[in-house]
């Protein structure tokens, strides 16, 4: 698991998973969409509590490797301010066959999204902003229902 303030480079990260025993590579990327729940998004800010995001992310990856016969698995998440189109999170998995690569890639991104201490604040084109998922956080402008994110 890695957390980075710099742009994620999926091609470079993929290359680190190359292995002659691998028959399948599945990569997932979460990109900043220009809309969420009917609102036009301008940019996003990710707040990450790094020590626990790293340890919890490592746990998730270790779980995936235990559940599925993988060769390699890795995940990188951005922190800080991101523009539309930027890659917020990357997951890459290699294995002998494709079943486990798809399943493990999906497992990792699903768990990363619900378990790692990472928060995102959306800044909208109309000027307001809000923390995603935080309907009842008593914050101004946080009127989002349960977020459906990528």
């Amino acid at each position, binding site marked *: 698991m890695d957390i980075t303030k710099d742009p994620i480079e999926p091609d470079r990260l993929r290359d680190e998973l190359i292995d002659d025993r691998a028959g399948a590579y599945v990569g997932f990327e979460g990109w900043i969409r220009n809309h969420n729940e009917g609102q036009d998004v301008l940019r996003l800010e990710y*707040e990450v509590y790094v020590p626990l995001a790293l340890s*919890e992310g490592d746990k998730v990856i270790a779980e995936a490797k235990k559940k599925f016969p993988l060769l390699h698995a890795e995940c990188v998440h951005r922190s800080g301010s991101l523009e539309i189109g930027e890659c917020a999170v990357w997951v890459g998995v290699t294995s002998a066959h494709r079943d486990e690569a798809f399943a493990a890639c999906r497992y990792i991104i699903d768990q*990363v999204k619900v378990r790692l201490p990472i928060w995102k604040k959306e800044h909208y084109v109309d000027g307001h902003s809000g*923390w995603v998922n935080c309907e009842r956080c008593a914050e101004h402008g946080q009127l989002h229902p349960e977020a459906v994110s990528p």
Partner: protein
Amino acid sequence: MSKSITVRYFAGFREHAGTDQETVSVAASTAGDVFAALKHRHGSTEPLGHCKVAINDEMAEWDSAVNDGDTVLLFPPVAGG
């Protein structure tokens, strides 16, 4: 009995509290007690199950015991990815 607990606030909780960290004296047996006692600070009416907590940089449960001197990290609903 009151305990001295250092509380760390994240994301919306931090913005509501106006600080990222403070040390408070609270009568609390569990992490959940700390969350409840500090409702006026983090401002959240979220169900506990939507939020997460860590004690001394280890993920914890809301019924985990807190001890005098512990640091309790209050996490609003996460939204990675």
